[in-house]
C-alpha cells in the first residue's frame, strides 16, 4: 500500500472576507464615505431650500448604510455570497419596516396596531435571518446570536415606545444596552490583553473564565437585571429626592457587594482550580515566574471588575438621570433632587467660637483626671484624652434653655451662591421621640431668617435631617459665618425643666456648599468601588495560594466583611478596648502593662488587655473601607474629594494589594504545586 494514497482532508477555508486588515480598512472607509457624502449632500440641498429632496436623500443614505454594514457583516460568515444574504436581510428589515409604516399611517381602524405588529414581525424575521446566515460558520455563531438578539431587542423597545410604555422600554433598552456593552467591553479588554507575554496571557484566560464560570454568570445576570429594574420597583408616592437617593445607594451598594463576592469566588476558584486540577503544572512548566502567574490572575480579575463597574455605573447613571427627570412631588422636592442629591457639595463642620479657651479647658480637665485617677489614666492615656474631648464636644453641641451657643464655620464660598445649613436636632429629656424642637438662629449676630419683618422661629422634628438654604446675602464676604442658636423649647407637660437641644457632634450640624457636579462625583465614586475590589481580589488570590477553595473563600470573605464593617468594628471595639493613637508606641506600652498586670496575678485584666491588643491588630491590618464611603457620600450629594480618591487608590488599590500579594507570593513561591491536603 502506497503511503501517499492517504487523502488528507483539506483544512476548511478560513473565513477570509474581512480577515485582512486592508479589506477591513477599505470597508470602513467606504462606510464612512457613504455616510459623509450622503449626509453632506443632504445638508447642502437643505441649505439651498430643497428640504424634501434632502429628506429623500437622507433616507437613501440610511438604507445604503444599513445595506453596506450588513454586507460587511455577512462577508465574515459567507465569503461566497454576501450579497444574496444582504439582499435578504435588507428586504426583510427595510421592506417590512416600510410596509408597516404605510399600514400604520393608512388610518383605518386598528391600522396603527397592525403596523406596529408588522414592524415587530419584520425585525424578528431579520433577526432570524442574521442567525441563519451565521449559523453555518461555527466561529461566528456567538456573534450571530448576539446580533440577532440585539435586533430583536431593539424591535421590542421600538414596539414599547410606539405603544407608549416608556418605562418598560427604558428598562428593556437598559438591559440590552448593558448586555451589549458587556460583550463589547469584554472584546475590548481581551484585545488590550492580547500581548504575547505571561502576565497578560494569564489575565486574559481569567477573563474567559469569569465569563464562562457559572457562579459569575449568575451574579452577572443579577447585576444586569438589578440595576435597570430597581427604579421600576420604587414606591412612586415617595418623594422623588428620597427615591433617587435610595436608588443610588442600593444600585451602587449592591454592585459593590455583588462584585465583591464575585471577585472572591472568581479569584479563589481560578487559582485553587488550577492547583487542584493540575492545570498549574502545564502553566508553570512554561517560561512564567510564579509571581507573574499571581499578578496575571490579579490583573485579569481587576480588568474584569473594571468592565463590570463601568457597566453597572453606566446603567446606574442612565437610570438615575431618567429617574431624576421624572415628575417631582412639588417644587421643594425638585429643588432637593437638583441641589441636595444630584450635586457634589463640600461639608464644613462647626468650629468653636473661642478655640483657645476651649482647648485650654479640655487640657485642664485632662490634667485634673490625671491627678484624680492616675491608675485609670495611665492604663490608656490616649483613650482617656479622647473621652474627655468627646464629653466636652457633646456639651458644646448641646444648647440648654438658659444658654446661647455659637458655632463658627470657616472656608465658605464668597461668591453669589448660597450655602445649605443641615441640622439634625435632638430634644433631650423628652421621652417622646418625635417631639418638635424649637430654636431661633442668628447669622453673624443678625437674626435670620427675617420674613415680613419677623424673626422666624424654627420648629423642626426631633432626630430628622433638615436642610435650610442660606442665601449669599446673609453670608457676608469673609468666608466665615458665626451661627448662633437660641433654645426656644418650652417646658414639656409633666416635666420640671425645659428641654435642651443637642446637635450631635459630627452629623448634627454642618454647612454644605456646592463644589462640583454630580457627573464627576459619580465617576470618582465608581473609581473608589473599583479600588476596593482590587484589594478584595488581592486578598482572595493570596488566600488561594495556600488554602483549598472553601477555606480560601472563607478567609477572603472574613477580610472583605471586616473591611466593610471596619467603621462599625472600630466604634464597637473602641468603646471597650484600648485603641491607641500610635500603633508602635502602644505595642510596647501595652505589653509592659499586660506583663505588669500578670505579675500582680490579675490575669483576667491582663487577658482582656491582650485580647484588645489582638483586636486592634486585626483592625489595623484590615483596610478601612469606611474611610472611603463614596456611595453614601454620592447618594447624599456630598463631594467625594479627589484627595480621598487618590488616597484610596494608594492605600486600598496599591499598598494593600502589594503587601497581601507579597505575603501570598512568599508562600506560593515555596510551596510544592500539588493538590492541597488541607
Amino acid at each position, binding site marked *: *500500500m*502506497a*503511503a*501517499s*494514497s*492517504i*487523502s*488528507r*482532508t483539506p*483544512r*476548511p477555508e478560513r473565513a477570509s472576507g474581512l480577515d485582512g486588515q486592508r479589506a477591513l480598512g477599505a470597508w470602513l472607509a467606504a462606510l464612512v464615505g457613504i455616510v459623509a457624502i450622503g449626509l453632506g449632500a443632504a445638508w447642502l440641498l437643505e441649505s439651498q431650500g430643497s428640504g424634501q429632496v434632502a429628506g429623500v436623500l437622507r433616507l437613501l443614505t440610511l438604507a445604503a448604510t444599513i445595506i453596506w454594514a450588513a454586507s460587511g457583516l455577512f462577508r465574515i460568515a459567507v465569503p461566497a455570497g454576501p450579497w444574496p444574504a444582504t439582499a435578504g436581510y435588507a428586504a426583510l428589515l427595510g421592506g417590512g419596516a416600510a410596509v408597516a409604516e404605510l399600514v400604520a399611517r393608512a388610518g383605518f381602524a386598528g391600522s396603527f396596531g397592525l403596523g406596529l405588529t408588522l414592524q415587530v414581525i419584520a425585525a424578528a424575521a431579520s433577526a432570524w435571518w442574521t442567525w441563519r446566515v451565521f449559523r453555518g460558520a*461555527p*466561529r461566528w455563531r456567538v456573534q450571530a446570536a448576539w446580533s440577532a438578539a440585539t435586533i430583536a431587542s431593539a424591535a421590542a423597545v421600538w414596539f414599547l415606545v410606539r405603544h407608549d410604555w416608556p418605562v418598560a422600554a427604558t428598562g428593556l433598552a437598559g438591559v440590552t444596552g448593558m448586555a451589549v456593552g458587556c460583550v463589547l467591553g469584554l472584546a475590548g479588554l481581551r484585545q488590550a490583553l*492580547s*500581548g*504575547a*507575554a*505571561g502576565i*497578560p*496571557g*494569564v489575565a*486574559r*484566560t481569567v477573563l*474567559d*473564565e469569569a465569563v*464562562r*464560570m457559572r457562579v459569575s454568570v449568575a451574579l452577572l445576570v443579577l447585576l444586569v437585571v438589578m440595576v435597570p429594574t430597581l427604579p421600576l420597583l420604587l414606591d412612586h408616592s415617595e418623594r422623588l429626592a428620597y427615591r433617587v437617593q435610595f436608588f443610588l445607594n442600593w444600585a451602587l451598594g449592591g454592585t459593590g457587594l455583588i462584585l465583591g463576592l464575585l471577585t472572591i469566588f472568581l479569584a479563589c476558584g481560578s487559582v485553587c482550580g488550577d492547583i487542584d*486540577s*493540575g*492545570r*498549574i*503544572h*502545564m*502553566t*508553570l*512548566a*512554561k*517560561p*512564567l*515566574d510564579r509571581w507573574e502567574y499571581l499578578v496575571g490572575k490579579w490583573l485579569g480579575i481587576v480588568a474584569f471588575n473594571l468592565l463590570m463597574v463601568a457597566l453597572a455605573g453606566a446603567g446606574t447613571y442612565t437610570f438615575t438621570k431618567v429617574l431624576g427627570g421624572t415628575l417631582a412631588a412639588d417644587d421643594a422636592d425638585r429643588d432637593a433632587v437638583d441641589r441636595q442629591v444630584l450635586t457634589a457639595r463640600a461639608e464644613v463642620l462647626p468650629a468653636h467660637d473661642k478655640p483657645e479657651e476651649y482647648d485650654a479647658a479640655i487640657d485642664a480637665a485632662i490634667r485634673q483626671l490625671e491627678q484624680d485617677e492616675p491608675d485609670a489614666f495611665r492604663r490608656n492615656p490616649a483613650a482617656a484624652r479622647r473621652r474627655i474631648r468627646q464629653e466636652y464636644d457633646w456639651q458644646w453641641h448641646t444648647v440648654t434653655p438658659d444658654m446661647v451657643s455659637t458655632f463658627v464655620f470657616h472656608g465658605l464660598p464668597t461668591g453669589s451662591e448660597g450655602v445649605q445649613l443641615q441640622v439634625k436636632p435632638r430634644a433631650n429629656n423628652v421621652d417622646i421621640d418625635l417631639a418638635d424642637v424649637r430654636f431661633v438662629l442668628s447669622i453673624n449676630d443678625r437674626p435670620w431668617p427675617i420674613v415680613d419683618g419677623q424673626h422666624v422661629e424654627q420648629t423642626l422634628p426631633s432626630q430628622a435631617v433638615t436642610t435650610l438654604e442660606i442665601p449669599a446675602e446673609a453670608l457676608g464676604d469673609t468666608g466665615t459665618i458665626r451661627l448662633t442658636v437660641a433654645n426656644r423649647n418650652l417646658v414639656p407637660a409633666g416635666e420640671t425643666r425645659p428641654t435642651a437641644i443637642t446637635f450631635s457632634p459630627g452629623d448634627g450640624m454642618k454647612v454644605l456648599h456646592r463644589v462640583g457636579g454630580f457627573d464627576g462625583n459619580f465617576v470618582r465614586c465608581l473609581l473608589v468601588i473599583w479600588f476596593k475590589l482590587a484589594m478584595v481580589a488581592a486578598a482572595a488570590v493570596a488566600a488561594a495560594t495556600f488554602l483549598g477553595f472553601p477555606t480560601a473563600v472563607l478567609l477572603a470573605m472574613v477580610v472583605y466583611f471586616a473591611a466593610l464593617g471596619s467603621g462599625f468594628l472600630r466604634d464597637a471595639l473602641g468603646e471597650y478596648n484600648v485603641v491607641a493613637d500610635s500603633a508602635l508606641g502602644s505595642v510596647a506600652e501595652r505589653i509592659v502593662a499586660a506583663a505588669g498586670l500578670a505579675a500582680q496575678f490579675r490575669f483576667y485584666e491582663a487577658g482582656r488587655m491582650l485580647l484588645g491588643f489582638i483586636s486592634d491588630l486585626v483592625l489595623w491590618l484590615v483596610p478601612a473601607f469606611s474611610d472611603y464611603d463614596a456611595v453614601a457620600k454620592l447618594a447624599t450629594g456630598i463631594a467625594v474629594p479627589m484627595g480621598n480618591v487618590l488616597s484610596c487608590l494608594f492605600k486600598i488599590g496599591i499598598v494593600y494589594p502589594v503587601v497581601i500579594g507579597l505575603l501570598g507570593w512568599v508562600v506560593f513561591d*515555596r510551596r*510544592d*504545586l*500539588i493538590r492541597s*491536603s*488541607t
Partner: protein
Amino acid sequence: MTATEGIDIKCVGLTKTFRDFWMRPRVKAVEGLDLEVRRGQVYGLLGPNGSGKSTTIKMLLGLLSPTKGRIAVLGRRPRDVATKKHVGYLPEESYLYRFLSARETLDYYGRLFRLPASVRRERIDMLLDMVGLEAVEHRPVGEFSKGMQRRVGLAQSLINDPQLLILDEPTSGMDPVGARQIKDLIADLGRRGKTVLLCTHQLSDVEDLCDRVAIMFGGRVHAEGRCDELLVQEDSTTIRTDSLPDGVVNEIRGVLARHGIGHLDVERPRRRMESLFLEIVERARAQGTETSGARSGGQVADFLRGHEAAKRRDAPAVPAAVGAGVADAPVETARPVDTGLIDSLINR
C-alpha cells in the same frame, strides 16, 4: 551548578520527601536519584506505578522542590525562565481549561512562550493539523474525549519547538493510530538532536524508541543503560528469511547438529496487532468513511522538522502517512526501530 556541554538533564542525589500538614515526613517518593541525559538522547524512565517517575519529572520542571540533591536542566536551575523556554512538557493527564477551544488553548500556551501572533498562528495551524484536530478546533476542550484532550496536550508541549521534551505517559488514552504517531514524532525529534525524556510503563514504546533507559522502583534507579545492551539476549540468535520448505529446515537442523547445537525453534512470524489495526483504519479512511472524532493527523509539523520558515502550503508534499515519518527517513543504525512493522506497512 556547572553547565556541562551536551548534558541536558543532570540530577545528583535527588531526594523528595512529602510531608503532611504538621511537617512530619510521610512518603519518600524519590531517594538519592542520579540521572544524566545527554543531548539528542531519547531516554526512557521506566517503573511501576508509584515508583517516583512523575515526582522526578515534576522536580525537573521546578513544580516540586527537592528535599535534597541538585538538579540542572539545560545547564540551569529548573525554575529559571530561560530553562523553561526550551522545555516542552506533556503531563500524565491532560489538564486543560474546559472552556477554551483547542485553538484558544494552544494560543494561551503560545502566549506564555511569548511567541509573536504570526508565529503562533502558523504553528497552531500546523500542530492542529498534525494531531488531527483542525476540524474541531473551535469546540471547547471540555467536550473532547480523553484521547482528543491528550492530542491537545501533545500539541501544547510542542508549540515552542522545545530542545528538551518531557513526556509523562504520552500514549496513555491514545488510540493506536495516535500512539504510533507520537512514537514517530519522538523518533523524528530524536533524529533532529532534540532530547526526549519518556516516562512510561508501555514497555513496547521504550523498546521501539529509547536509546537509554532507567528502571525505577521505590524511588531509586535499579538499572540503567543502553536499551539494546540491556535487552540483547546473549544466549540466542534469530534468523529471519523467506518461508522455508520442510526440507530446507531439516538441512539447517543438520548443519546446526554438526556444530553441536541441538535446539531450533521454527515458527511463522505473527504480525503485531498494531500493524493490523493501523492497516484496517487506513483502509477505512481511504474509502472515505466519516468520523466525528479526531482525524488521522498529518505529518509531523514543519517547524518541528526544522522548516520553520517554509510555508505550509508550499512545502513539498511529504507522504502523509501513519508510520511515514519512520519509513521516509534513513534509519540510524544506533536506533532500534521496528523494521518489521514498516515492512508490513509498505509491502502489504
